[in-house]
């Protein structure tokens, strides 16, 4: 960027007041508004009921957003790849479950709205304990230590009954009758709004943390840890504090999990849950703060909703990851941020046409691919289960050649068309970017 633009930007920032600063954060405010309104879109006006399924899924998204953001504190901001992050989610959840049970029996008089703090403190305590060992190392050694810790905790969760409740887990009741705002939390929608509030708080705190010296030093240690030492901070200390704080937020997510499902079982500390964190964060984009938010929403959608429609959802997940890592390592967030300079120069309109030209062949290829996978699946597994392949009331018979032919045409034809469209798009992209650069030079 040129001097002129920097000066202009600085001038604008200085001239803003609080209102201006708030206006700059409009994506977050918009997201908050969406979060508040979305449950009402599926409200059944005839029965006066929210869709329990949608509210559950949205609650899960809220929990996973906090979880993924806490994971990114380690991965994206400090360069720490951890395979055992779910440990803090689960342990925070267990602590909250015990706290809730204590609150119900009267030994711990705390209102429900503040119970996530219990989970957070639990997560923090365990993160300090495990982090002391794990952060002694970096990179691969660190990753392997977290893998070991994750496996050990997961096995312990099965073996020990007193804290973990064994296989049946620890169950609890969130209606403890104590609330700051007088809500009973009988209805899932009330818990959902509590999650929204806590998510907003957690997001704000984590965002602010990235702007503190700790956050900046974590970035420095990630980029070049030898050099960072010369600044005067001990990278090990930076790693340790960052790890512990990330455990705090994961514990909050775990507490919200307990409030939503009212039961915590050993799968919350399992390797699968840790892998989920990794997937969500990476797909959303590790380089962008909001990336994990996008990733969390997408993965929850994939797991809970797409899996309703097809048992091959794991294949789609696998293909999505592979495409992402091959063509877009910055994740979705990275892709969005690539458009930022164009947005600022108001050149986005010029890309609308090329995008549309890309959309059609892309859609064809996607449909063709999904068709092939579903046909294979129905041919081998689904048929025996007595399921029929239905596409909006049209039954597709996998044993006839027609669907296969259609799929082949879509895939191959669409693929060739797509290749040409991509080349055209790349050309258009470069043209736009060059124009912007030229405009800057003149300014």
């Amino acid at each position, binding site marked *: 960027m040129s001097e002129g633009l920097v000066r202009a930007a600085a001038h604008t920032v200085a001239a803003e007041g609080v209102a201006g600063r708030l206006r700059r954060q409009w994506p977050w405010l918009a997201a908050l508004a969406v979060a508040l309104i979305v449950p009402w879109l599926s409200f059944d006006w005839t029965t006066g009921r929210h869709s*329990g399924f949608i509210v559950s899924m949205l609650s899960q998204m809220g929990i996973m957003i906090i979880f993924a953001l806490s994971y990114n504190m380690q991965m994206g901001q400090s360069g720490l790849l951890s395979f055992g992050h779910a440990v803090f989610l689960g342990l925070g959840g267990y602590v909250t479950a015990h706290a809730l049970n204590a609150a119900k029996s009267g030994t711990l008089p705390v209102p429900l709205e503040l119970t996530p703090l219990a989970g957070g403190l639990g997560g923090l305590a365990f993160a300090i304990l495990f982090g002391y060992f794990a952060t002694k190392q970096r990179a691969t050694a660190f990753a392997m230590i977290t893998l070991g810790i994750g496996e050990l905790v997961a096995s312990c969760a*099965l073996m020990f009954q007193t804290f973990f409740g064994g296989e049946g887990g620890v169950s609890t009741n969130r209606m403890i009758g104590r609330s700051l705002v007088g809500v009973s939390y009988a209805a899932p929608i009330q818990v959902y709004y509590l999650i929204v509030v806590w998510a907003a708080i957690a997001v704000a705190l984590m965002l602010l943390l990235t702007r503190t010296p700790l956050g900046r030093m974590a970035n420095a240690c990630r980029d070049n840890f030898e050099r960072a030492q010369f600044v005067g901070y001990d990278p090990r200390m930076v790693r340790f504090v960052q790890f512990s704080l990330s455990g705090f937020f994961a514990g909050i997510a775990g507490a919200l999990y307990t409030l939503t499902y009212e039961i915590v079982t050993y799968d919350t500390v399992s390797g699968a849950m840790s892998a989920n964190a990794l997937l969500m964060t990476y797909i959303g984009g590790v380089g962008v703060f909001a990336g994990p938010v996008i990733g969390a929403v997408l993965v929850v959608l994939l797991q809970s909703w797409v899996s309703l429609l097809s048992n091959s959802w794991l294949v789609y997940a696998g293909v999505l990851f592979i495409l992402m890592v091959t063509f*877009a390592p910055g994740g979705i967030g990275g892709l969005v941020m690539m458009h930022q300079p164009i947005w600022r120069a108001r050149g986005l309109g010029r890309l609308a046409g090329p995008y549309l030209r890309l959309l059609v062949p892309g*859609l064809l290829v996607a449909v063709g691919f999904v068709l092939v996978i579903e046909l294979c699946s129905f041919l081998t597994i689904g048929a*025996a289960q007595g399921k029929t392949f239905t596409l909006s009331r049209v039954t597709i018979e996998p044993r006839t050649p027609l669907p296969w032919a259609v799929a082949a045409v879509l895939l191959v034809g669409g693929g060739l068309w797509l290749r040409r469209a991509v080349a055209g798009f790349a050309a258009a992209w470069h043209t736009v970017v060059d124009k912007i650069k030229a405009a800057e030079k003149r300014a």
Partner: protein
Amino acid sequence: MLHGIKRTGSTLVALAFTLTTGTASAQGTIKIMYTDPLSGPFAQVGDQNLQQFKYIIDYINGRGGALGRKFELVSFDNKSQPSEALLALKSATDQNIPVIMQCSGSNIAAALIEGVDKHNERNPSNRIVYVNCGAVATELTNEKCSYWHFRMDAHVGMKAETMVRALPKDVTKVYLLNQDYLFGQSVQRDVKSFLTKLRPDVKVVGDELIPLGKVKDFSPYITKVKASGAQALLTGNWGPDMTLLIKGGMDAGLDIRYYTMYAHLGGGPTAIGPAGNGKVRSVMPFHENIAVETGKTDTEGWTRQFRSQHDFDFYAAGFRTIFEFLQAAMNKAGSADPLKFSAALEGLTITDMLGHTVTMRKADHQILSEYFVGVFTKGVKYESEKTGLGWKTETTVLPKDLDQPNTCNMKRPTT
């Protein structure tokens, strides 16, 4: 960018795909929500259950269904996670489905019992009944029991008693080996207590717990078993923990009887193989040769037809009993409303397809049905999974023998 398009594309396409089910009861079928792992490493469990359910539901619908309506199964993949099972529950209550069924995983069952209880309490106009078709932890109909939960399979205590009753008189030394989690620990505890009660002459010469799913090489354990001089190995293990244990024992030439609870399920006979002839026993509610042994030709023909269409044995006689119970209860109550037919279901007695009298005990909603111990051997009419060997009944335990005391203290709904 490319993948971004693909992602939007996939989502849009996914939107276009609709299940045949659509919404609610406008079509007149009685929907049953069924949730189990249908993807991932445990997908075979849900898959086989679905195939057997389809066969059974076709049969029951052919006999008039219930209240003149047909049954329809709606499946939901819970990916072995309690949170997903609770999502299935929400989906079911959204569609006013009266029954949710689940067969695999006591942790999921525990979550469902609590979830159903709380939902029914907080939403009395939209209740649902939970039919447990296979989660066997004993507490689910004891400490954790609930009015809305009906268990249609024998629990661990009952299976342990069956196993102990099947021990022949000449076996006096047994070795216990189980998986180290709630289920395995219950098996360990219950088997020991029934041994003390029913067979005080038997000595437990070894008692092990192994971490779940982690042991690949059982030879050190086999060595210990051999050294102890045990004549029978009693285990509740399932999956690789069971098959590798048995294989390890056979490879080491261990001359012992194996008593298991799950060797008869899909994949077990294949994994054990012909070498297990006469050695491996399993506690089971059904196998295809019982009908032959007791002369029930219509049942035999019914399961034979299943075999001809599928590549695994029919083992889920209990599932047919479930639907026969649901049919009888709904017809008796004259309604598919959860409150009404659950009142009819508890205490109900029917005759199952093997001719035994089966009861749904009112006190704890635990089914009392017959149980068998079969031995894996040659020379039976129906062999398992193309191994050349099949199951032969060694011991039959009647429902009344399994009427164990329970500690259930359930709250009954007043409205």
